[in-house]
């Protein structure tokens, strides 16, 4: 009987209550409509638009180095925010540079920044200036070890040229020390004695899937590298070893090495850098510019030209919700490379 009474009372009260909610529902209606319309648009655009390639589909296994972009690609991919961008690769798999089909004046080695992640071909930094002729050799996710190996493979090509080496703080410094990136195996460096000697390890690199799953906390690692921690000394020790090897290689082929330090957008954006500081394991020693300062010092000691994009790029030069450059950021990086190229080649001066 009780449950019947409750049922009847609820049946009567419910329409009254629904009537009372009407003003709030009317107020919400435009917002529902816009949110639903936006979802519909995004879905339709996904169905009707060009189907972007997944990041996995962009690369092939490459012995020794781990992976390499597929050659002769002409495709669309998505940046981290989900924006599509067009990309083409040349016969070697590197991002196509119409101005540097043969010999280039500047060779840029790096990771996704050198690959032009998130940037369509026409806005890619290597394509926005005809002089100097820039050719970028890089792929998503590379560490400095892979880039050094590619420099060694392309040594003859680099003869007499300027070699720009991008060092992104977000993962490069840490992943020089790791044997994998997700399920992909990658070469890394390890310290072999206390005197600071290092060696490159690549025996484990194969097409076989790396079985250990982990969620890599990149910003956590970057925050740790920004502190005076064992990880930061190890990361900078590895960077010194690799830069020294790169310098030696460039000298052998009469090329000039320039290291361009690429802090993460979080390190550039003063309004957000506290988010990184919050993750620091030793907040008292946290310095958002520690990687820049350490790399500058390494380059000074190794007599390698050095430049940092800090102070050169602004947060607005980055894709929203992504760590990579937008079209304007790419143009500014091209300007920086052009300015570095115009300076005396053998200059060990460190541009500010």
């Amino acid at each position, binding site marked *: 009987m009780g449950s019947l009474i409750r049922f009847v009372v609820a049946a009567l009260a419910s329409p009254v209550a629904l009537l009372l*909610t009407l003003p709030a529902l009317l107020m919400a209606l435009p917002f529902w*409509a*816009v949110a639903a319309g936006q979802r519909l648009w995004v879905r339709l655009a996904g169905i009707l638009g060009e189907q972007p390639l997944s990041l996995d589909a962009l690369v092939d296994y490459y012995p020794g180095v781990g992976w390499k972009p597929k050659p002769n690609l002409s495709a669309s991919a998505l940046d981290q925010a989900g924006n599509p961008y067009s990309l083409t690769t040349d016969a070697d798999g590197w991002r196509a540079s119409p101005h540097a089909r043969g010999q280039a004046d500047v060779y840029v080695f790096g990771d996704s920044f050198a690959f032009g992640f998130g940037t369509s071909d026409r806005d890619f930094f290597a394509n926005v200036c005809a002089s100097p002729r820039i050719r970028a050799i890089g792929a998503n996710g590379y560490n400095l070890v892979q880039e050094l190996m590619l420099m060694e493979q392309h040594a003859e090509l680099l003869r007499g040229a300027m070699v720009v080496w991008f060092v992104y703080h977000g993962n490069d410094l840490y992943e020089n020390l790791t044997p994998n990136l997700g399920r992909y195996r990658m070469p890394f460096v390890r310290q072999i004695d206390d005197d600071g000697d290092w060696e490159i390890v690549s025996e484990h690199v194969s097409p076989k899937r790396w079985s250990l799953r982990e969620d890599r906390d990149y910003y956590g690692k970057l925050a740790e590298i920004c502190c005076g921690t064992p990880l930061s000394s190890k990361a900078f020790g590895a960077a010194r070893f690799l830069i020294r090897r790169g310098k030696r290689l460039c000298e052998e082929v009469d090329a000039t090495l320039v290291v361009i330090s690429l802090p993460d957008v979080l390190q550039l954006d003063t309004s957000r850098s506290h988010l990184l500081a919050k993750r620091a394991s030793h907040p008292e020693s946290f310095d958002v510019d520690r990687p820049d300062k350490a790399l500058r010092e390494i380059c000074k000691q190794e007599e390698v030209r050095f430049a940092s994009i800090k102070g050169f790029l602004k947060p607005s030069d980055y894709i929203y919700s992504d760590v990579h450059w937008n079209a304007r950021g790419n143009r500014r990086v091209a300007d920086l490379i052009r300015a570095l190229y115009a300076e005396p080649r053998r200059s060990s001066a460190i541009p500010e």
Partner: protein
Amino acid sequence: MMSLTKRMARRDVTGFLVTTGILFFVIGMILLWTLFGSWPPAILASGVGGLLYVVSGLYWQPLSIFAYRAWNRVANRVASFVRWWVSSIAFHVVVRVVGQASGSKSPNARHETRSFWEQRGTLTADSYVGQYNRAYRGGGRGGRWVGDYWRWCLGSGNGWLIFLLPFLLVLRIASGERESEVPENVYTLY
């Protein structure tokens, strides 16, 4: 569901501009018609206005990002108000009234001495993943919760709670900010 995605990819922003453009066109058309009493100029003026809004938003990114963020901020506030309003109405007008009408079954009733404790049997190991109302689950996730809820109302002897379903649906639609699809650590290849 009332909020836009925080991701703000180009498609998201374009979708927002087009949808709000249509909304402004409709509202503008109705307002202009009430002012001038004639449809053609109302349609023309609001159409041109809506189109200008969409085109300028597409070409001037700071404007569209500003509009997107502002809209989302207001949408979240409205969603929060709607949730408060709807849950308050449902509680005071339905739940409390039903409670008053059936005092004898209330655990707080003065003369009620019987325990409402219900003995549960031993559970199987696989049930630890989701014990709550397991008996009424249709095995589904996400959108199937309505069916699960319906079965639970009927199966547990709380049939009157079916009348709360419209309110739960409204609360579901008025949920807050959508999860960002960008992971916290955004530098990832795979």
